[in-house]
């Protein structure tokens, strides 16, 4: 079973040379730390920066330079700043190649819910609805089950949706799954996790074909 860092490490392997990548808040933010050093990738944040670098060295924080999670950041050579409209032009216009974000629920047809629990919690959708409506390549990073042990991979989402038919791939603490038009197709198991464990933790239709390999993280 993976921890959050493990999920980030596995997703990092999906990042290819030449990709512009948007990372959501939470686990996705960690992905930047594990991308191979021999490929060229640029990170976009929807609040208006392309070419994000690591957090600043203590004492060098600049209140005017943050990411969409409101964290102080730095920029790398070749970076640029721009307004919100142009930022979402990058996203809506499919110039960003890969979007990685968290979710509360994903359904077997690729719907995603991650912004609201009616009557209880409202985070707001931020840029997530634009990202999922536009991106061709969306990976969801999340735990396979919620705190009560209930599956987050469902037949149908119970929470208000963020987007429909949009999620392509899911990486959880238990597995890597692809969303197909027949349901969740199991691609890889987390180290030490059995297919049965994944089946039991997946409410939506799970497709298991042949031997399911264990993830390789490094």
């Amino acid at each position, binding site marked *: 079973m993976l921890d959050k860092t493990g999920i980030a490490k596995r997703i990092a392997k999906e990042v290819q040379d030449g990709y512009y990548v948007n990372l959501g808040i939470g686990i996705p933010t960690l992905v930047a730390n594990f991308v191979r050093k021999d490929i060229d990738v640029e990170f976009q*944040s*929807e*609040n*208006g*920066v392309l070419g994000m670098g*690591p*957090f*600043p*060295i*203590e*004492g*060098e*924080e*600049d*209140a*005017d*330079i*943050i*990411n*969409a*999670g*409101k*964290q*102080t*950041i730095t920029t790398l050579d070749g970076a640029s*700043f*721009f*307004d*919100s*409209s142009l*930022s*979402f032009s990058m*996203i*809506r216009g499919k110039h960003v190649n890969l979007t990685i974000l968290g979710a509360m629920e994903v359904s077997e047809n690729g*719907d995603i819910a991650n*912004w609201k629990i009616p*009557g*209880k*919690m*409202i*985070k*707001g*959708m*931020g*840029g*997530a*609805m*634009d990202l999922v*409506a*536009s991106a061709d390549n969306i990976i969801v990073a999340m735990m396979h089950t919620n705190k009560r042990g209930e599956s987050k991979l469902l037949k149908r989402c119970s929470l*208000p*949706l*963020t*987007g*429909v*038919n949009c999620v392509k791939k899911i990486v959880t603490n238990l597995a890597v799954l692809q969303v197909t038009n027949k349901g969740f197709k199991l691609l890889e198991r987390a180290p030490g996790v059995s297919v049965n464990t994944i089946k039991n933790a997946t409410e939506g239709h799970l497709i298991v074909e042949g031997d399911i390999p264990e993830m390789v993280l490094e």
Partner: protein
Amino acid sequence: MINKKIDTVSQALHGVANNMTLMLGGFGLCGIPENAIAELVKLGVKGLTCISNNAGVDDFGLGLLLQNRQVKKMISSYVGENDEFERQMLSGELDVELLPQGTLAERCRAAQAGFPAIYTPAGYGTEVAEGKETRDFDGKMYVLEHAFKADFSFVKAWKGDEAGNLIFKGTARNFNPNMCGAAKITVAEVEELLPVGALDPNQIHIPGIFVQRIFEGKTYEKRIEQRTVRQK
């Protein structure tokens, strides 16, 4: 050159009244019009509709207006870390319209640019699209979203000149340029107000034609929401 310089923040906000619709730039606490917000608190105008990506935090930014119960309705994309915002919203005290961030930006830009409405894929199939017109273009579904109509737009820039030309810094740019000229009156506050001729005409982010009033802000606290650092 048409001079937009205003000497004081109180003059800059002349005409702001109860029940108006205001646009306010900023993302979290980054690039917010601190001086205009402080003046709004001082004025005590009530029943405001505020269009702004976030509502600040409990005790800073737009959070100050929320605490003071000056806001009737928020139009935002993110509640985030503002507990008072979430509390007022869940209790129904505050009317909240949550919109996708790109939609929010583009409805401002549509107002600036004279477009009545835009078609965006964001929010299709979700409750955000409920009651809105949707349409198929080339096999993909889009939601029709209308340009905002606002009375005042309060934006914050880094440098400006007396002609109203603006230059923003870093990610403090965010929604600010898109809100310029998107309301009946745009009030820009800047950290440094320069005489005309001081800015390179090639490097102006927002030309002065989109700004009706400009003033130099007294102080900027520029509070950081998430101070994340690494070791040397």
